[in-house]
């Protein structure tokens, strides 16, 4: 045995040591295993979060999400990443950490019972969690990022339900008050009296639906609410045409518009009814 014969082996060992240093010391699979292990307990905590049924519960749930995500991001930063994947992992961690801001915003907004800010934050939270999940899953992580989706969806659904309940309660109250005002009006028996009735009725109707439009739309229901209010806009436009026809004494046109009105009102009412707003729909005056 001579040193001469160990030469190639020593060279190989040195090269291996050098490569290990360049590679940051861990393989991807090792990192993934450690990272998913680190995210597991936080995900378990979030899994225990029940669907919020009111704003204080929503604030508490959002706070738990924020704290958990911060802890998970901190834990991931402490794990040595494979050298070649450092940029990708930094992106995964950044996306995960980005979830904390809307979660805190939601905690804050729900704590202040600020429906508009709550709706914005709950939507932003879901978007950030979706992005974090996609990025983490793309890298091969199964618990980090992806594990947030189910609990955050529960928070989102709860937030939506809480905001919808508030929307329905407010819209229903507005409709009940406006129905009362409309009930007090007298349509009269002549075309001229009907025209005068519409002069008072239409502003009540317009104000009612302007007020409803100003309410905070429950997140995820934007299209349904827009569709419902667009159907009512057709009713209002038709009512205005009817007012003009009545003021001109054009009874034939008033009759034609009356048929149209029935169709528009049915469409609109069926949408309000389906959304849980029967006092703004079939049981209302508009």
């Amino acid at each position, binding site marked *: 045995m001579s040193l001469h014969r160990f030469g190639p082996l020593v060279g190989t060992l040195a090269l291996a040591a050098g490569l290990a240093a360049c590679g940051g010391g861990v393989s991807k699979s090792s990192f993934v295993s450690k990272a998913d292990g680190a995210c597991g307990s936080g995900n378990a905590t979030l899994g225990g979060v029940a669907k919020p049924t009111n704003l204080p519960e929503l604030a508490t749930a959002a706070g738990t999400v924020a704290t958990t995500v911060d802890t998970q991001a901190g834990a991931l930063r402490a794990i040595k990443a494979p050298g070649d994947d450092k940029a990708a992992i930094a992106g995964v961690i950044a996306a995960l950490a980005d979830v904390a801001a809307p979660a805190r915003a939601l905690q804050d907004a729900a704590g202040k019972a600020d429906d508009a800010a709550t709706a914005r934050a709950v939507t932003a939270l879901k978007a950030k969690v979706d992005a974090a999940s996609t990025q983490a899953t793309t890298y091969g992580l199964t618990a980090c990022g992806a594990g947030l989706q189910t609990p955050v969806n529960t928070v989102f659904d709860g937030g939506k339900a809480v905001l919808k309940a508030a929307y329905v309660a407010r819209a229903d109250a507005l409709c009940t008050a406006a129905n009362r005002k409309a009930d007090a009006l007298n349509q009269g028996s002549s075309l001229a009296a009907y025209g005068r009735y519409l002069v008072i009725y239409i502003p009540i109707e317009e104000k009612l639906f302007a007020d409803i439009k100003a309410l905070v739309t429950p997140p995820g229901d934007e299209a349904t609410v827009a569709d419902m209010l667009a159907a009512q806009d057709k009713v209002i436009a038709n009512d205005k045409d009817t007012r003009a026809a009545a003021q001109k004494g054009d009874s034939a046109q008033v009759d034609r518009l009356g*048929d149209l009105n*029935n*169709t528009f*009102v*049915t*469409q609109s*009412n*069926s949408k309000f*009814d*389906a959304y849980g707003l*029967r006092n703004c*729909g*079939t*049981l209302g005056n508009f």
Partner: protein
Amino acid sequence: MLIPAVALAAALTACGDDGPNKAEFVAKADAACAPGNNAISTTAKPTNAPQVATASGTAVTTIDSQVTALRALKMPGGKDKAQIQAIVAAIADVSAPTKALQDAAGKTDDAAMAKAALDMQAKADAANKSAEAYGLAQCGTQLKFGLGNMFDGVKNVVKATYVQKAETLCREYYRKSDALGVPGSTPASFARYLDSFLTLTTKLVTDIKAIPTPPGDEATIADIGTAMDAALGKFKDAGEALKAGNGRLAIGLFEEADVANTAMNARFDAYGLPVCGSTGP
């Protein structure tokens, strides 16, 4: 060595003399089917029952001719032969419901027209699937699209009748319900009025449900039927509550009945039945 080789070639030719190869068959078959398919697909969409009868009669003749032509073609042997025979049988199967459609349209029998059109479409779908799987581009495959035009025509014809019959029933219903007069002011007289109203309404629902359903609109018509049942059910419940002397419950149920009525009217309107729907009195 030359003699055995020639003998072998002759023997192989003899063995292989069991028809054309697949590509040759497909080319010949499609060429045989193309003119007939063209005749069916260029027929104008029928707009009334006599036109449906004429168009379906043409389709029957065409399909039968295609089947005869395909059976006359030499087929590849082996597995292909069985597959081709199944395709030809599937195309032949389209003929019977198309003939039934012709007969039904000749008698202006909407229910039979609707049933035959659905059968025809199902058989054409089956023929299309098997023909396409074999690689035919005309036989079976194009037949489906040609007949699709006729199916749409049948649907329109049956729907026009459906709409006309339903709207007539609804007008008659309104005339009769107007004749009931106004409900009395006591719960007992109101309950009597409601009984008469419910008898009329139950009959209307039954009569509308008995109108032949336009083919392809089964789900929509079923949905209308469900909405009618829901509204009628709520009115009946309200009537029962009223008879039981539970006015508060009756009022709540009448409100629910109104909501169910709106949902029903929205469906009638969407199907083109404004008299049964929102513009009815």
